[in-house]
């Protein structure tokens, strides 16, 4: 029997199409319970590879023969090791090429919609980590929002569309993943925008994103309006694109809201968060399509793999937008916070330009789910 690799992109397609398959995850139990490949119809078995070094006979009856079996580990070495033993035992299995690291880095581009003057907006779904980036394209130009450090993906995508990246924006100083924004802006000689209140300690030059500022993409003038919306960080800014899309950063998600504590000031910022969600956002048109910077659970994906919902629907259905009592709201966002993202302090310092870890270290820093939300 044979062992063949499967790419992270193929698994992403299985997850989006809700295909049923089986994952044998051979990482240790802590790593598995902290973060794994999520999918609505995935069955799992977690057996650390070091428990089957003597052979896989003991687990064969737990591994199905009537569906695809993918062996997964951190980098791929152990999954190949176990997959080969399963093949010797007569099973057809695949292993995830590049392991959870490749899964963490895979970006799936999805077109979210058209712009009035012929442009389009694309979402890049980092399915393994729950990060969402955007490319707004109009008349030969592109703007990128909340880019991940896999900068080639964005630059190549713009090349394919034959558009020039002119503006690169971050909604806030990220704490869960390393931004690729500055690197892309430097590579294409574009302008890098950051909210100044999040950028007081950065070591590089940037263009300040201030409330009411308008950035134009393409000759047909697609406007990106900056809307100051503090709460996740003090500088957090949302963007309204083409009067139709609300890029909400880490303030508002589909099924959750932003957490205010990742820069260490939960108590101070909870009031800002409430003000943004319950006052500023209330003044916006309910027909705006909300495009957040994250998703937390796989159920937030639409059928085409994108993550979006109208502001009106979120006002009706998102629990975090429907807490009348301010004390109760305060309790939700400060009293019951999930664990902080892996290496979030070092990630913030990297995004400020204070430290420059090598690529392997950056990968390690980003291991795990994003954890930027509270439900």
């Amino acid at each position: 029997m044979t062992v063949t690799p499967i790419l992270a992109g193929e698994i992403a397609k299985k997850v989006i199409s809700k295909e049923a398959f089986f994952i044998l995850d051979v990482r240790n139990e802590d790593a598995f319970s902290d973060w794994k490949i999520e999918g609505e119809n995935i069955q799992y078995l977690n057996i650390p590879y070091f428990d089957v070094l003597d052979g896989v006979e003991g687990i064969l009856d737990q591994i199905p023969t009537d569906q695809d079996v993918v062996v997964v580990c951190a980098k791929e070495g152990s999954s190949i090791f176990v997959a080969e033993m399963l093949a010797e035992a007569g099973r057809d299995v695949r292993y995830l090429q590049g392991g959870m690291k490749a899964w963490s880095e895979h970006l799936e581009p999805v077109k979210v919609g058209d712009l009035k003057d012929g442009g389009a907006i694309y979402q890049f779904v980092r399915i393994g980590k729950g990060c969402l980036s955007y490319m707004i394209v109009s008349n030969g130009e592109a703007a990128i929002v909340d880019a991940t450090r896999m900068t080639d993906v964005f630059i190549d995508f713009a090349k394919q569309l034959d558009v020039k990246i002119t503006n690169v924006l971050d909604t806030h100083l990220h704490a869960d993943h390393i931004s690729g924004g500055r690197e892309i802006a430097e590579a294409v000689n574009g302008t890098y925008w950051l909210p100044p209140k999040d950028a007081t300690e950065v070591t590089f030059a940037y263009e300040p994103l201030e409330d009411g500022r308008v950035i134009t993409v393409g000759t047909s003038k697609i406007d990106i309006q900056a809307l100051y919306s503090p709460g996740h960080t003090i500088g957090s800014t949302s963007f309204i694109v083409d009067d139709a899309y609300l890029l909400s950063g880490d303030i508002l998600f589909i099924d959750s809201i932003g957490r205010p504590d990742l820069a260490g000031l939960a108590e101070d910022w909870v009031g800002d968060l409430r003000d943004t969600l319950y006052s500023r956002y209330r003044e916006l048109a309910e027909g705006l399509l909300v495009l957040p910077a994250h998703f937390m659970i796989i159920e937030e994906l639409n059928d085409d793999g994108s993550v979006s919902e109208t502001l009106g629907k979120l006002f009706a259905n998102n629990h975090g937008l429907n807490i009348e009592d301010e004390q109760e709201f305060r309790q939700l966002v400060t009293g019951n916070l999930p664990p902080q993202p892996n290496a979030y302090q070092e990630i913030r310092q990297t995004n400020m330009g204070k430290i420059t870890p090598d690529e392997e270290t950056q990968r390690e820093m980003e291991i795990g789910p994003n954890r930027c939300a509270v439900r």
Partner: protein
Amino acid sequence: MNVAKVLDAKGLACPMPVVRARKTIKEMETGEILEIHATDKGSMADLTAWAKASGHEMVDQKEDAGVFTFYIKKG
């Protein structure tokens, strides 16, 4: 610390540090200490989890200039 054996697993990627550690410790007596040097970052969590699951004791571990050193007492 009374180290009975030293295993050099530097440069080896997962799963080899654990595979070698397991093989080496099999040839040792209960209560003896195995010192392991590794450079694979994943080995930190894996050797700890493996030692626990196999009834050995992680006595100490440290990192210096990218090299992880582990002291595991055979159980």
